[in-house]
């Protein structure tokens, strides 16, 4: 990946790369922790794809190829920071401590969310592209008003970079110097739309026009993503304002399980990115530099297998909700049409009688 603009601390071969602006601060144990995160989330993601193929999920949005981008950013966050994700941020959700089965509630079609966003300080998935960027900026404006040393971070892709809401969020963040990090995972494809159609300049460079810094980082290099994210978040927390991070990565799989990427992209491209795999390069580093033995990697694999099995069990146990729950939390307060709907459902015997 020959690109002078790209912040990279670890080559695809797993060799350290020096960078004038950033250096890795992580210990061997910490790097192994990131490896473990990535290996587990990849395994859980693959299990989820299988569950969808077996008819147990309505849909799945795989993250394969983007593990470093998500784990690097997710682990750079402080517990008090708040993140605003799309529907593909399983790695971030993992870092926020959200149980994997909660991530699958949306895809099992038993919930439109899946977890308590206030508890985990990780918002519910946003499916309409770009909407969440404005929520993050508004949240950041709240942080400012509270005088808190916290940051908001929002995740989106190259596709959402064309949305008005994303660009309005850039304007707002700059105008109010909001404590926010815009984390764009440029995975090169918005379903079949190539990132070249979204932007004629590298995405990170857009930030300059809005009045804040932009950084392009190798999104498949977890060490670089971690350091770049950490610095941007710290800068936001102390009043330094917004940063746009473009994590340059690749969506190895389909957009979702409903997609067929063979119709619009060539195998050769996928092959190139296979050699830039985010998990393998960390594994190579750990083996060479820290003398981590294969048994340690095997243990992680076994742990991931066990979690995948548990996830499968949890998903299969998620049954169809009582239809009357559709009325819960539609409103905060009493509403006549909610009462009417509930009543009708009970009268028609659709629901056993509420709860």
């Amino acid at each position: 990946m020959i690109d002078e603009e790209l912040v990279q601390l670890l080559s695809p071969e797993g060799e350290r790369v020096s960078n004038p602006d950033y250096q890795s601060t992580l210990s061997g144990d910490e790097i192994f922790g990131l490896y473990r995160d990535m290996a587990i989330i990849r395994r859980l993601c693959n299990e989820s794809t299988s569950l969808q193929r077996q008819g147990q999920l309505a849909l799945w949005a795989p993250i394969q190829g983007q593990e470093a981008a998500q784990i690097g950013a997710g682990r750079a966050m402080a517990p008090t920071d708040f993140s605003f994700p799309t529907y593909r941020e399983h790695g971030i959700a993992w870092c926020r401590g959200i149980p994997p089965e909660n991530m699958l509630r949306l895809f099992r079609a038993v919930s439109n969310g899946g977890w308590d966003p206030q508890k985990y300080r990780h918002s519910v998935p946003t499916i309409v592209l770009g909407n969440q960027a404005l929520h993050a900026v508004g949240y950041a404006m709240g942080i400012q008003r509270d005088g808190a040393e916290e940051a908001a971070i929002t995740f989106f892709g190259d596709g959402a970079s064309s949305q008005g809401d994303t660009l309005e969020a850039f304007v707002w963040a700059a105008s109010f110097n909001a404590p926010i990090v815009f984390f764009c995972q440029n995975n090169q494809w918005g379903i079949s739309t190539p990132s070249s159609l979204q932007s004629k300049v590298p995405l990170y460079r857009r930030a300059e026009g809005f009045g804040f810094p932009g950084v392009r980082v190798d999104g498949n290099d977890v060490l670089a993503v971690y350091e770049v994210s950490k610095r941007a978040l710290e800068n936001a927390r102390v009043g330094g304002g917004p940063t746009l991070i473009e994590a340059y990565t690749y969506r190895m799989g389909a957009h979702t399980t409903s997609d067929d990427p063979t119709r619009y992209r060539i195998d050769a491209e996928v092959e190139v990115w296979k050699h830039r795999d985010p998990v393998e390069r960390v594994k190579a580093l750990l083996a060479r530099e820290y003398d981590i033995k294969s048994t340690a990697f095997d243990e992680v694999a076994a742990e991931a297998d066990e979690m995948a099995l548990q996830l499968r069990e949890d998903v299969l146990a998620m049954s169809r909700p009582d239809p009357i729950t559709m009325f819960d939390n539609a409103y905060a307060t009493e509403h006549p049409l909610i009462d009417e709907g509930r009543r009708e459902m009970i009268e028609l015997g659709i629901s056993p009688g509420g709860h």
Partner: protein
Amino acid sequence: MATTTMTMAKALNEGLRRALEKDKKVLLMGEDIGKLGGVFRITDGLQKDFGEDRVIDAPLAESAIVGTAVGLAIRGYRTVCEMQFDGFVYPAFDQIVSQVAKLRKRSDGAYTMGLVIRLPFQGGIGAIEHHSESPEAYFAHTGGLRVVSCSTPNDAYWMIQQAIEHDDPIIFCEPKSRYWEKGEVDIDQAPNGLFDAVVRREGTDITVIGYGSTVKTILRAADTALTEGVSIEVIDARSLSPLDLEPMVRSVEKTGRFVTVHEAPHMASIGSEIVAELTQRCFYSLRAPGIRVSGYHVPYPPTRIEEDYRPTVDRVLDAVDRVMGFES
């Protein structure tokens, strides 16, 4: 009872002031609402008294005004968003329908979308295009939202405060043609709940239901009708979603006849909903079908001819005559 006379614009201003005083989590955000006090001066003087952090002059992007208010709500703030005009709310439509309306549900109740979207609506001020529309039905159709409208200074003063305190998101429709009309405001006690329809004048022969600007039009029509021996009961719907049907049902069970009046076109409108509900609920009391007086199914016309689009006293009276003359 301490009452004072003021315009609806001033009543809204005073209501917002009181809300800002009562709860430091209340913020105002909109275009030109600071130094200028808003194009209608509803927020006049508030930035001076409460500061730029609480009365926020927004860059000109409506989706962002609403979208950032969502984030502020997640953080525990209550933002009153001002849309400068009805016709400029559509850039924010996506945020309102996809996020504001749905986030409480999506978060299983973890998020409270306590925000108010103020919408100067309806016509009658001789403006250029996009400044005179009645988009209330778009929002009334969406589960998760509530829509209300004030028609008097007293309601304006109280309803804006009630809306800000309420935990559901509220589209707050202000009849801009009535901003400068004066009325008595009771600053001690709210006249009604936020979602109550009220009888503005009692009558015996026919019920006429409106909201916002048309309430006054209906009251004028009632004056004229009385000289012709027809007694109109006038109802101000106030809450457009949900509708407070009980007072309407009571009235129509008494009169057996009704008309609805609003500026919005009648296709899939608040009037259509009222007609459907009252026909269903009052079927055996009805002596004639309900009729809707409304704007026409066209883009809002150039305002030199807007008074032929908006319901007038004459059009209300014509509808009353048709219903009164109906022979079954």
